[in-house]
């Protein structure tokens, strides 16, 4: 580890769920200009190694911060709560809803207009995801970590479903 700073500290951000993606991207470019190993190509081996480690840490921080689910998990980790990526939720109502959504996904192919059916489903999943993001942000900033954790688990479910929607989309219409 080249630095003990947190991902947020590296990017000069206060640890919060909401963040400005434009500023994150701009800051990423600045950091790379300073620490990319290419800037150290004619320096000593030691400094080159440090630059690789530093740039790797910057890349890792960038990957985590720009992804909403990973960012949420990281915030909880900083607060001392580890959430394994495959853990389930105990909210039966939510689970029921997930089952229904999945059934609809499986039936998209048989619909008279699969494109529209898929589009509607995607929009619904997207809006549920946004709702959970809001939930998480509120719970986290109010210091309600148990609720935040529950919301993160739901986000993990939804993001998985979103990926399946995308896969089906590529499968059905992806051919150029």
């Amino acid at each position: 580890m080249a630095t003990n700073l947190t991902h947020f500290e590296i990017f000069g951000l206060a640890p919060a769920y909401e963040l400005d993606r434009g500023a994150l991207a701009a800051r990423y470019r600045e950091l790379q200009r300073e620490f990319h190993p290419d800037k150290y190509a004619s320096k000593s081996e030691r400094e080159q190694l440090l630059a690789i480690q530093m740039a790797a840490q910057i890349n890792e921080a960038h990957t985590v911060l720009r992804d909403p689910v990973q960012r949420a998990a990281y915030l909880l980790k900083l607060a001392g709560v580890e959430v394994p990526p495959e853990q389930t939720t105990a909210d039966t109502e939510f689970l029921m809803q997930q089952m229904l959504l999945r059934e609809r996904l499986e039936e998209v192919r048989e619909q008279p207009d699969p494109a529209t059916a898929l589009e509607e489903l995607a929009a619904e999943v997207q809006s549920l995801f946004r709702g959970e993001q809001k939930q998480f942000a509120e719970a986290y900033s109010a210091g309600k970590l148990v609720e935040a954790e529950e919301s993160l688990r739901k986000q993990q479910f939804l993001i998985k479903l979103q990926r399946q929607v995308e896969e089906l989309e590529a499968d059905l219409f992806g051919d150029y």
Partner: protein
Amino acid sequence: MALLQISEPGQSPEPHQRKHAVGIDLGTTNSLVATVRSGSAEAIADEKGEVILPSAVHYDSNAITVGADARARAAQDPYNTMISIKRLMGRGIADIKSFGEQLPYHFADNDGGMPSIETVAGPVNPVQVSAEILKKLAQRGREALYGRDGGELDGAVITVPAYFDDAQRQATKDAAKLAGLKVLRLLNEPTAAAVAYGLDKGEEGVIAVYDLGGGTFDISLLRLSRGVFEVMSTGGDTALGGDDFDRTIAAWIAEQAGLGTDLDAGTQRQLLDSACAAKESLASAERVEVGYADWLGVLDRKIMASLLDPLIDKTLRACKRALRDAAIGVEEVQEVVLVGGSTRTLRVRERVETYFGRAPHADIDPDQVVAIGAALQADVLVGNKSGDDLLLLDVIPLSLGIETMGGLTEKLIARNTTIPVSKAQEFTTFKDGQTAMAIHVVQGERELVSDCRSLARFELRGIPPMVAGAAHIRVTFQVDADGLLAVSAMEKSSGVSADITVKPSYGLEDRDIAQMLQDSYAHAAEDIALRALREAQVEAERTLESLLVALRENGAQLLEEGELNELEHAMEALRLAHNGGDAEEIRRRMEALNKLSEPFAARRMDASIKRAMQGHSLDEFDK
């Protein structure tokens, strides 16, 4: 009276000493070297004015010939003439057999690792052959930059195909090491071509690099976004190129001249030569006369187009596949760059323009464009030019994973992740008192280990004996800016770092390279001990210089007085060792100093992050 020069604190006493760096295109068929002189990049010619060095090496019992002279001997001495060696870099015997190509070489049996080829000069491997080509190019570079007396190059950027895996990149870097070159960076060929055209300074968007050489075709789609060059997809045909154009035109001449199909080698050669000449004439002329024996005819652009179109169709189909892999439409491509000698053929340009719907960049000699891009990047990396306007971030072309139970791959680093990257993974022991374990690293996208490329096997030793499951070994996989993997391991509870031995699946181990270096010095009658000493001294100078600059900058703020004293003692010890003549002693002192200065280096990193933040209010990011 001479005035005493006193430099500003924090500034180097030699403010502007130009460094000497080259860019090298190490190609399958041809290789080139280029450099930046008086502001512009140009390819360097040999004493006969030839810029292209054929990638051919001929071995005699007492001499090694590289280039055109070597290629000329391929026909009569195929076993001792190495051509297209790039195809064998980082590959195993089994891969080479599966190429299905007729390689004339006698491969020595060496338990499935890196192939070794029997020649009259003894066995040689692809890394050694490539090193000979690199040496020749480096020599050209030295003569161009220093004149006959020579001098050392400060560094080189060497290009590799975008799809090269870790083993192929490592083999290229090993060849450079063997040739005595300091590699500043391995650069992807299509990225180099885009840099040559200055596209890195342009708008955000997708760039297609269409590379048609003598024997291979490559298409690469790059995305330029927020200063990151990302390889989106690559494709092509490893057995399609300008040579096929020549063969097709030669067959047409033979048919027109009524020669039949069963021709002897001499006739075939003659036909190919006139086919190639006719093809080149048609780049400027509308029509050209061709003849064989008493037949005389005319080849015009229209006939040639009809002959070449089926071959060009194949390249465009590969473009289409690459677009599909990248999940974009052809209209999203904003720039097209032509690379490779065969893109001089007018018909190729026309078809590419029609397909992509825009005129391709073709002003720079397509044989030289990759080397020129590499030279521009080398100039920046060696420190001649402030590189603020040029920052190339690359991605890893293939996912890296490890073998888990049942021959399955567990992905650690996904393809297209921006590099450098490092990932840590924890392992535990499954037997009481277990002190060693093996990790098999593979590269590829498939689920089964057997469908991926084996990169290396790492053996961890020196794990403290504990009950099963109690040891937690944290293994860190680190991929540097060249896409090369390094692995380190540590037992967490005890803090003991485990020893790692790397067995590259198709590469060379460090000690192999050391041995080869020694052998090559023995040939050149160069004193290896002297070389090792000089290398250690240069590294010591770099270490001392950069630490001195660092101390001047913020030693006072970041170090306690005791720490500063300790550092200064260690620096003095290294200085003394540097002036002595013992390379080992220099390395030991340098290692000690590096260890001692580690906390200072970490504090400096933190400080420079915070410094880079100044000028930004925190809430600017806090929206």
